[in-house]
């Protein structure tokens, strides 16, 4: 079972709809017991870094997610969800992120239209999440900030918007996507399918 963290930030319904479309059940919840029993946790979110962290903290989810990360649970951050996994953000300096990845979240350069809204090309490493997806595929982005300075070995995919930025990161069982797979058409659904299968496989091996 995939649990999608529902903490009042943004369009979480679409993530659930996307998984359903490719044949995977998921549940929208902020219940720690339900989340603890889940094989994978999806952390979606749009909006501001600071208020998202505060909302997660208020629900006891900051400590919980850190504990799950240490336990090796599969966690997928989407858009703001990816940014929350870094150390901190220029958007709300002074507020700590989840710190699963080293590096900061910074704003796109002033010569670019911000937010980055629309379809941008993504290139990626040979990774299970991108299986069957052509290099240079366009994914849908809607972000003003991006993760910077993550360690090279954690960089799974990248794009360019005035600067090179991390389009996807991975550290063990923790994944982050800066784009919205649930809004990226057929290839986005393909990625959700790949993720769902990966969770299934982990289920079968008892991880």
């Amino acid at each position, binding site marked *: 079972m995939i649990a999608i963290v529902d903490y009042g930030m943004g*369009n979480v319904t679409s993530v659930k709809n996307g998984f359903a479309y490719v044949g995977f059940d998921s549940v929208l919840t902020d219940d720690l017991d339900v989340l603890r029993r889940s094989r994978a946790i999806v952390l979606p979110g749009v909006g501001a870094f600071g208020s998202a962290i505060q909302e997660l903290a208020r629900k006891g989810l900051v400590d919980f997610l850190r504990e799950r990360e240490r336990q090796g649970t599969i966690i997928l951050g989407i858009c703001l969800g990816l940014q929350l996994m870094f150390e901190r953000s220029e958007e709300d300096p002074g507020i700590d992120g989840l710190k699963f990845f080293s590096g900061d979240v910074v704003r796109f350069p002033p010569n670019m239209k911000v937010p980055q809204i*629309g379809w941008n090309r993504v290139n990626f490493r040979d990774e299970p999440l991108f299986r069957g997806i052509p290099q240079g595929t366009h994914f*849908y982005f*809607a972000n*003003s900030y991006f993760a910077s300075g993550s360690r090279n070995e954690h960089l799974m995919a990248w794009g360019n*918007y005035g600067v090179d930025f991390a389009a996807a990161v991975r550290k063990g069982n923790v994944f982050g996507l800066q784009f919205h797979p649930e809004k990226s058409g057929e290839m986005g659904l393909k990625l959700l399918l790949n993720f769902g299968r990966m969770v299934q496989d982990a289920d079968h091996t008892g991880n």
Partner: protein
Amino acid sequence: MAKRIIPCLDVKDGRVVKGIKFVDLKEAGDPVELARYYDQSGADELVFLDITASFEGRETMLEVVRRTAREVFIPFIVGGGIASIDQIRNILKAGADKISLNTPAVENPAIVKEAAQVFGSQCIVVAIDACWNEKMQDWEVYTHGGRNAVGLSAVDWAVRVESLGAGEILLTSMDADGGQDGFDIPLTRAISEKVNIPVIASGGAGTMEHFSEVLKEGKADAALAASVFHYRQLLVKDVKKYLSEQGLEVRES
């Protein structure tokens, strides 16, 4: 970043009101069917413009949004008659990615700011209807579906909504709208050059060249059209193929 092609669907009481008889769909007037058709034909995004007046109609629209979100996996904007934070919340919760504000933004600019703070700029689109005013020697903003001139410069208003936190501008030229003689290039360019957020150009699409013009000379980030797509004068995928041949980046699909 790819240039976006965006079909717009006018919806009244849960049914599409334009162009339906030319599209051979199972259930021709169903906005969800039409949305799926456009998704499959390469549209990068969709706009639902709710032209319903009644409360019941608004509930129907929420159901359309819910169904669309279950079957269509490209972004979509819902606009028309949205005037409160609660309404925005309901539409986004139902599965829309963005909402657009038009008249209420002019009458109460604070709603743009509040909406951007609550939901994030990336889901707040301000729709601007503009018409050239000879006396002002400027484009003037109109509200209430193009009925009321408000004496405001469209360029100034665009700059203002950006500062209020709008994430995108949906710019309709009333001079060009319905004519199929091309988008309003000077208007689109004037606003695109003044703001630092994406501009969706609307009004006047008739040929593939028109799309190329507004995305190149007009400097728009996206182009929206209704009739040319609904009546199948043009197919979205042909327009995108043409744009690609013209050297513009488009999403392959």
